[in-house]
């Protein structure tokens, strides 16, 4: 059987509607992006734990695909999570993009793929 890829748990979680993070069983350090071992202690034992789904925008930019210009530009952002990690996401309400803005993750289907996107706290549903 093919070795389970290190990041599969994350996308399987997304497909179930859960935002997960790898947590080291030996020292409880969390890590993202996923790795086969804990960089803090070297252990390969880990569990997946749910994240709060909250965050803050550290930076954002407009992404236009270079050769698929018919696609809508996306507002890609770097999000700081209160748990102490960062994730790249894209903003569902780009008109509210601002550094320091509070966001919440919403697992959303985009182009046929479920992705962990974010919406600002003031962006409504």
């Amino acid at each position: 059987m093919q070795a389970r890829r290190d990041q599969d748990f994350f996308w399987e979680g997304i497909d179930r509607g859960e935002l997960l993070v790898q947590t080291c069983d030996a020292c409880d350090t969390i890590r993202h992006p996923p790795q086969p071992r804990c960089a803090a202690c070297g252990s390969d034992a880990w569990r997946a734990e749910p994240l709060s789904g909250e965050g803050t925008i550290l930076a954002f930019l407009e992404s236009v695909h270079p050769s698929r210009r018919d696609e809508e530009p996306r507002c890609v952002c770097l999000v700081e999570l209160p748990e102490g990690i960062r994730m790249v996401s894209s903003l569902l309400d780009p008109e509210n993009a601002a550094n320091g803005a509070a966001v919440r993750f919403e697992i959303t289907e985009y182009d046929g793929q479920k992705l962990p996107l974010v919406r600002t706290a003031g962006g409504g549903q």
Partner: protein
Amino acid sequence: MSALTKIAEGQTAITGIGQTAYTKESGRTVMSLCAEASMKAIEDAGLERGDIDGLISFTMDTNSDHDLQSAIGLPLVRWTAKAPFGGEGAYATFQLAAAAIESGQASNVLIFRAFNERSEARFGQPNFNPKAMPRDYHRSLGLVTPGQVYAMWHKPFLDARGMTSEDLGLLVVQMRAWAANNPDAWFYGRPITLEDHQRSRWIVKPVLRLYDFCQETDGGVAFVVSRLDQARAQGQNSGRPVVRVLGAQQAWPLGESMMYNYYKPNLTYAEDTEVVAKALWEQTGLSPAEIDVSTIYDNFSPSIPISYEGYGLCKRGEVRDAIRAGELGPGGSTPVNTNGGLIGEAYLHGLNNAAECVRQMRGTSANQIEDAKIALCAGRQCGMVLARE
């Protein structure tokens, strides 16, 4: 952790440089470019092909050592190595060459890089369909091109310095002023104003405009690194200055990433570069104030201020002032990328900037800095200091 071993003892010299024409469509195979640059470097070094016994490049280069050996007819290769990635790490090749030569594993090492980056495999025009690929943490969220990938971590640095697109424009104007006077540069004879920069279209809004990007290029560049005593003897015969490699270092602190540099502890300065710089100053006994001329890896304009501060060419937090005062351009106190850099001359994945450092030490640059004796060849994750003898 043990103390840093002094790998390079300053006992090597760059004896040869070679480059092809830098074009947008070479119409040739990559190996023919690689072979031309290599042959020119060997000839420039005053050596025969049989003198070359080491081959070094970096992992992004696609020219195999053995294919190059066959293409130019090297009788026997005893040492090969690849530095990680390339680009910001391109100058690690000189550290590898020094390690090989100073340990007696090789006598004359050929460093090479060639590609058809504009006419064939453009880094900025990925031909994949993101939707048809497995999801991932960056591409699936909209970071598709190198410009987007880098701009996302450039932005926190720029914000922390209060730098805007206009500040990047002031910087690019200085780079283009150098390029305008360099006949090898793509932008030879074509300086720009701040207004030109601000009118160039957004590619990655609100960080990178068209003129903040390097010049995608077809071409090749190569170097010969030799033993210092051999280079000195040769220098005495030829009367040409010896270009000594005083130091070459690389640093990859945990958490830093060449491209997806979003997860390191602090996004507002380049810790990796500060580690490289500290090691270089320890190795060479020099300080930033003693650098006469620099090249800084500039795939995108924000890479320059990040490394400029990282190497201590100004204090942390003061690079905006240096740019606004024109310190990096012609007439400035810290001339940077006198060839025009990757933005103005060509994008040979960083190694054309190393060639400019060699020319500055030889006194043959198109924008020669008077009495330049010490050159810094800087990348974010590796750097080299050259001295004219």
